């Protein structure tokens, strides 16, 4: 972990630190990172690493890319420590960065994704031991087929609808937080979610 520059320890930071005491724990940690306490960055990483990577994995459906993007998210958080202002919840800010990076990635790799979705079974998913599969190999095959259907249905959603569904279903974010992450109104988020779930219900109806 690099040593933080000494100029972080300023009076301004002390004042902000006083404000941060009344704030959520993550914002307090962020102010301590700004003041040079690098252990606090490790705490932030520990708290948010898994949810951010899981969100990005479901967004881009590729574990290596998800981890690469997650590294970039935390790098941006660290770079922004000097200018950080708790205008929104830390988690909202974090997902805003993550969503921004994921949407950019999806936009830049649209063609590759189209090719990949033709052969989604080759993509990496949760690793399973062969010994686990032997007793119920048929069940596992059925489960794998259903999982592929779900992944494909999610992948085919428009990018913003996909981000909204993932933040709502898996990250359990409030509508207001999703709205801030996607830079739209709460009513727009609700509308996005309604349309997305409707599409998913239709696409996955045959699995019921």
């Amino acid at each position: 972990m690099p040593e933080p520059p000494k100029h972080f320890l300023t009076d301004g930071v002390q004042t902000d630190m006083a404000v941060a005491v009344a704030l959520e724990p993550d914002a307090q940690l962020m102010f301590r990172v700004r003041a040079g306490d690098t252990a606090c960055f490790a705490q932030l990483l520990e708290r948010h690493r898994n949810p951010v990577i899981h969100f990005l994995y479901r967004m881009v459906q590729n574990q290596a890319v998800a981890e690469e993007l997650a590294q970039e998210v935390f790098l941006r958080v660290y770079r922004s420590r000097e200018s950080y202002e708790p205008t929104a919840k830390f988690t909202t800010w974090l997902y805003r960065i993550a969503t921004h990076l994921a949407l950019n990635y999806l936009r830049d790799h649209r063609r590759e994704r189209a090719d990949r979705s033709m052969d989604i079974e080759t993509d990496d998913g949760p690793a399973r031991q062969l010994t686990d599969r032997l007793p119920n190999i048929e069940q596992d095959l059925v489960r794998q087929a259903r999982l592929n259907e779900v992944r494909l249905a999610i992948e085919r959603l428009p990018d913003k609808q996909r981000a909204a569904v993932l933040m709502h279903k898996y990250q359990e974010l409030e509508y207001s937080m999703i709205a801030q992450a996607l830079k739209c109104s709460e009513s727009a988020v609700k509308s996005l979610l309604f349309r997305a779930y409707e599409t998913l219900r239709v696409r996955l109806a045959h699995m019921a």
Partner: protein
Amino acid sequence: MNKNELSCPMKNSAQPELLLDYVARRLDAARAAALEDHAASCECCQQFMADQALLWQELDLFEPAAISPKFDQSVYARLAADDRSPWWVRTWRKLFAAGEPGAWRPAMALSAACAVVLTAGLIQLPGSMPWRHTAIHGSAAVEQAVAPVADARDVELAEKALEDLEMLQVVSGGKL
């Protein structure tokens, strides 16, 4: 309608998320009970809730993959590399790749303004765009228009050269 009775969420555009929240178990007990009371007599809501609950189960299949044990190490390596980068690279990143998406916009606007000023200055400077002359002379229509003038100038130059030659002959006594 009873004060505690719920209006149908499928028909009431003010609370369309109520059914989604119910299936996601995000409603408080009182609202969940009110919705259940309503759904008992509303086929439309019953159907929606059943379909959404099934979808919810299917979506649970999409589990995340295992995270690489070297992830933190990679993050710290990138942070260290970032801190070692030259000051101008860090400044550039601050302007164009800060944590807040869209933070580059003021810098982008400034760059665009500078580009406009520079372009305007370049246009105003005389002789600053020689390619414009080349372009004019290069066009066939202009060449046609200029051709007679060029021919007249050539004749004039040739005549002058002959006169000079005659003058030289006079000066040198006819011996060249």
